[in-house]
């Protein structure tokens, strides 16, 4: 994943677009209905790497989350905008 891709992901914790796979269910992003996944991602961090669908290690803290893929590096999300 490029730095630009990672930056785009970290701007929106609901994002599943921009990668091949859905961060919530690990399924192919362009097929199947991921409407439920988009909704879910407002209340949970992504668990699957959008680039390769590997399960990521995810740390949730009060103000946000960090998700790491062994291959593609780190995604972050802040749930306290402006903090």
């Amino acid at each position, binding site marked *: 994943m490029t730095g630009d891709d990672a930056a785009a992901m970290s701007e929106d*914790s609901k994002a599943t677009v921009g990668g091949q796979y859905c961060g919530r*269910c*690990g399924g192919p992003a362009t097929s199947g209905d991921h409407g439920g996944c988009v909704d879910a991602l*407002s*209340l*949970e*961090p992504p*668990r*699957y790497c959008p680039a390769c669908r590997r*399960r*990521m*290690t*995810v*740390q*949730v*803290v*009060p*103000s*946000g*989350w960090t998700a790491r893929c062994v291959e593609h590096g780190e995604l972050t999300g802040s*749930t*306290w*905008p402006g*903090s």
Partner: protein
Amino acid sequence: MTPSRYDTGQPRTSVCARMAVMTAQAVHKAAPNIDGSETSGGASSPGRGDILAVAREQVLERGERLQLEQILEVLRTGDDELEELLALAHEVRMAYNGPEVEVEGIVSLKTGGCPEDCHFCSQSGQFTSPVRSVWLNIPELVRAAKATRETGASEFCIVAAVRGPDARLIAQMREGVAAIKAEVDIHIAASIGMLTRDQVGELVDMGIHRYNHNLEAAASYFPHVVTTHSWQERWDTCQMVKDSGMELCCGGLVGMGETLEQRAELADQLGELEPHEVPLNFLNPRPGTPFADLPVMESNDALRCIAAFRLALPRTILRYAGGRELTLGDLGTRDGLLGGINAVIVGNYLTTLGRDPKEDLSLLADLQMPIKALNATL
């Protein structure tokens, strides 16, 4: 303190057998009718408004908690009585706790890879949940405590997904608590599983002021929720915490497929235990767990639970815990704060996300509920 019928060391009968006796006694106990007359024998018939009138007199006016059959009657009231029920629960909260709301942040020090099989939990290593093992380092822990304090919260709870702490976790807790205390003015709580008496002492020495260990479910439903340890083991840890001088934080989950009777049983057992704080979780069905396909609780059922728990625990700190965003939404959150709840978790949970604290704090300001100050809790 009068020993509880659930304490180990007393003549052993199964918890379920004791509960059956309690239930039978409660069924045959006469409940006063609204006009003061008593119904002789049999179960009290929950006429419209009866249990609310009984609760008003018993709980609000005399400060005596509802008992098992009464809690069940509350849970059986209809949607047409919900507004009145919540209003009564709110009066009880205000009378015995005042308007303040205690605000707390929590963080997972050790996530995932838990050896237990609590069916609601995405952190169990026994299921196909996508949650993987992660450890938080000390600087990150202190940052989380600071961020929590900046919201005005007075409590910060460190949680680990374990059966119980080993020496390594105790050492990390000691280092982590010391690091937080050096930089952040906040009360520290912990939730790191079942304890030995020595471990209880170590946590007291570290300066942990409150310890969480939920009963999770009613004793009779517990075997359907967890098989790797017993309800009695959880009860025993809770009693040791109480004996140590640390405040006990103990609650559980509803919406896990239990019956209304079992929901009432959980509230009654918590009422018997009298924790300082009761966190109430509404099941958020997590992918890969045995409970993944259970339906999300109906908002009105969740609100009835809140009111029933308040009437079973008039003096406790009753806290919104996991699942309230999903189950209640914004409007339901407000209704619950006006229906018995007097504490919240601010920000995110252990593996799932919560609201922006500004939204919760704005709601509390709208409701004219001050945040409990740090000094007030000392």
